[in-house]
């Protein structure tokens, strides 16, 4: 891109500037150049920059500019259609979703409570006090049906349902498919996403059940089943988000996310799928940080790295296999309990990173009080309006990759990409993501980064406004986590009733079928679908699988 003689001229001019302009200014304040970090970038910092090779065009290899060839004009946008929510009993969540539907939401994003995420029924002794907290309790098909009663009048195939389920994805997916069958919706019409990203649970989020080996078999089963029967459904969404929230740096976020993706893709290939058969349906979820330009660069690098992995490593041919479909969340780890209204500014800046960085649905903002617990109606409205203001008033979404060609952003994009390849090489040398997780490599790296971050905060090197600098007392905001005391009691009564009403002989036979399938190699989806139709509970199915697969025992060394 840059002619050699022009770069040489620029180099000479920069030296002149240093002696004539910069030195004078420094002398005045009696400081040295070393006192300042690098303050501007020129073509000298990206000497080899080649637009065609490194950026290409929107929707074309290597996809740095964008996954798709056109950006959706602001006027066609309606803003958020989904908001991660769910709490209490299925009835409580149904009523909340009814309210969201009245606000135009058609993409329920379902948060399950921890017992449901970890495969225990609400009546298990281990889960006392946690039923219906941080998400909805959903042990049976009956519960799933109740939740979706919120969308009466909206055909199921028009809903983009997103399920945050991982270790127990086979069961949640089975419930949804059974629900679709009951409603007469053909499976090939269903849209939506199950998160189904178990590897990041071992390293960042903690809702694992089985050891990595059997978990990867469940992943393969869902990939195979999804590829065959669910052409419009994303059976997995591979997340950098939680990895970042747990403390990873931007480069670690991408590297660990892609290392996990490589492991899943290899599992799909090993199960007999062709790369272009299933790669186009893989979706991703990115994290975000506070460093505005660094995040823009990270999102750009992510698309380029992914395209290269798919082309060079997996020899994909279909352009859809190269596209990194990556919406990104806001960085809740940057949100503060102190002066919480400042989180509106943080989420706005992060929304600008995701928008200018070209993430799908870029500009998405989360409610400022998420750091305190469940959002309030007022904070939801602000979060919904944030992308609207960014796109429709500030026009930030009009041009694709508007920071392309910025010397600084291209430099950062190149830097983060280099770092990601290095980490990916390291993980390959450890034997891939599963082996690296078993050795504790990713867990330790993330914990180290989180600790380093904290040390920077404590030394004051990293400023968090309201936390380690500019501390002022402020009136607490409304909201926060409040839980209704009767949730557990109400839900347990419902669950007991379901267990009483169903045909328990059939349930026992269905569980035996699942044990047999788990011990063998057949796909677990069909027997699990059969079981949930009989109102077999999530906890019972997980218990059957635990008996065959065992449970994951993490290493607790610091």
């Amino acid at each position, binding site marked *: 891109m840059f002619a050699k003689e022009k770069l040489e001229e620029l180099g000479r001019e920069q030296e002149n500037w240093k002696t004539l302009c910069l030195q004078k200014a420094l002398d005045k304040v009696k400081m040295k150049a070393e006192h300042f970090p690098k303050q501007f970038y020129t073509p000298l910092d990206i000497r080899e920059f080649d637009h065609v090779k490194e950026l290409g065009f929107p929707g074309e290899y290597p996809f740095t500019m964008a996954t798709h060839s056109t950006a959706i004009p602001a006027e066609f946008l309606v803003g958020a259609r989904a908001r991660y929510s769910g709490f209490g009993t299925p009835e409580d969540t149904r009523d909340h979703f009814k309210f969201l539907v009245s606000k135009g939401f058609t993409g329920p994003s379902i948060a399950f409570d*921890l017992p449901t995420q970890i495969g225990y029924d609400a009546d298990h002794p281990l889960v006392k006090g946690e039923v219906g907290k941080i998400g909805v309790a959903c042990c049976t098909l009956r519960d799933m049906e109740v939740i979706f009663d919120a969308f009466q009048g909206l055909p199921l195939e028009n809903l983009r349902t997103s399920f945050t389920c991982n270790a127990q994805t086979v069961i949640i997916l089975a419930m949804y498919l059974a629900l679709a069958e009951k409603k007469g919706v053909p499976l090939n019409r269903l849209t939506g996403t199950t998160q189904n990203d178990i590897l990041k649970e071992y390293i960042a989020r*903690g809702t694992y059940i089985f050891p990595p080996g059997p978990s990867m078999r469940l992943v393969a089963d869902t990939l195979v089943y999804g590829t065959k029967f669910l052409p419009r459904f994303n059976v997995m969404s591979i997340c950098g988000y939680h990895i970042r929230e747990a403390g990873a740096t931007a480069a670690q976020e991408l590297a660990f996310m892609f290392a996990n993706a490589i492991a899943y893709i290899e599992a799909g290939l090993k199960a007999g799928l062709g790369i272009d058969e299933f790669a186009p349906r893989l979706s991703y979820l990115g994290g975000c940080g506070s460093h505005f330009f660094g995040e823009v660069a990270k999102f750009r690098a992510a698309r380029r790295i992914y395209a290269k992995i798919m082309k060079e490593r997996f020899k994909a041919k279909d352009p859809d296999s190269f596209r990194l479909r990556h919406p990104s969340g806001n960085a809740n780890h940057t949100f503060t*309990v102190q002066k919480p209204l400042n989180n509106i500014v943080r989420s706005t800046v992060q929304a600008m990173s995701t928008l200018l960085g070209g993430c799908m649905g870029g500009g998405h903002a989360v409610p400022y009080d998420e750091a305190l617990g469940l959002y309030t109606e007022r904070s939801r409205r602000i979060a919904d309006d944030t992308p609207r203001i960014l796109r429709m008033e500030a026009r930030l979404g009009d041009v694709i990759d508007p920071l392309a060609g910025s010397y600084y952003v291209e430099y950062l994009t190149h830097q983060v990409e280099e770092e990601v390849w290095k980490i990916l090489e390291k993980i390959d040398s450890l034997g891939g993501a599963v082996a690296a997780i078993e050795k504790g490599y990713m867990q330790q790296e993330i914990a180290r980064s989180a600790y380093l971050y904290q040390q920077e905060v404590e030394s004051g090197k990293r400023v968090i406004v309201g936390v380690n600098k500019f501390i002022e007392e402020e009136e607490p905001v409304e909201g926060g986590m409040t839980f209704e005391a009767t949730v557990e009691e109400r839900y347990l009564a419902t669950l007991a009733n379901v267990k009483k009403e169903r045909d328990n002989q059939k349930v026992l036979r269905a569980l035996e079928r699942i044990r047999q399938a788990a011990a063998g190699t057949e796909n677990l989806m069909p027997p699990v679908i059969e079981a949930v139709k009989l109102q077999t509970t999530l906890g019972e199915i997980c218990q059957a699988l635990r008996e065959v697969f065992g449970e994951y025992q993490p290493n607790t060394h*610091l």
Partner: protein
Amino acid sequence: MEAERKIKVLVAKPGLDGHDRGAKVVAYGLRDAGFEVVYTGLRQTPEQIAMAAIQEDVDFVGLSILSGAHLSLTQRVLQNLREKGAGDKIILVGGIISPADSAKLKEMGVAEVFIPGTSVKTIAEFIRSVVKSESE
């Protein structure tokens, strides 16, 4: 003065909550601040935590809870410790905890509650101040 025995702290994750960034950061930080630190790992029952506190003979038990289940889990840890004759362990709780719940926890017998944004230095200083006031 007691010989060079280090102050020993158990950092514990009760319940099903998997968010351990804070627990690990505090564990690393307290270790670097000169304490002896044991980390339980995720998904510990109140019974397991009480047992660990006794077996490891710790002075302090720090509970990290971000799932909203802090009232019932802390109550059960305290109860288990008392039943096992270890009611003298000093309990600290960290998490997203409202001022109202913080007051309830202190009524139960929790020595201090630390919310997000608290520096590890503050926690370390608190622990030292408790030890100092007890030895006086």
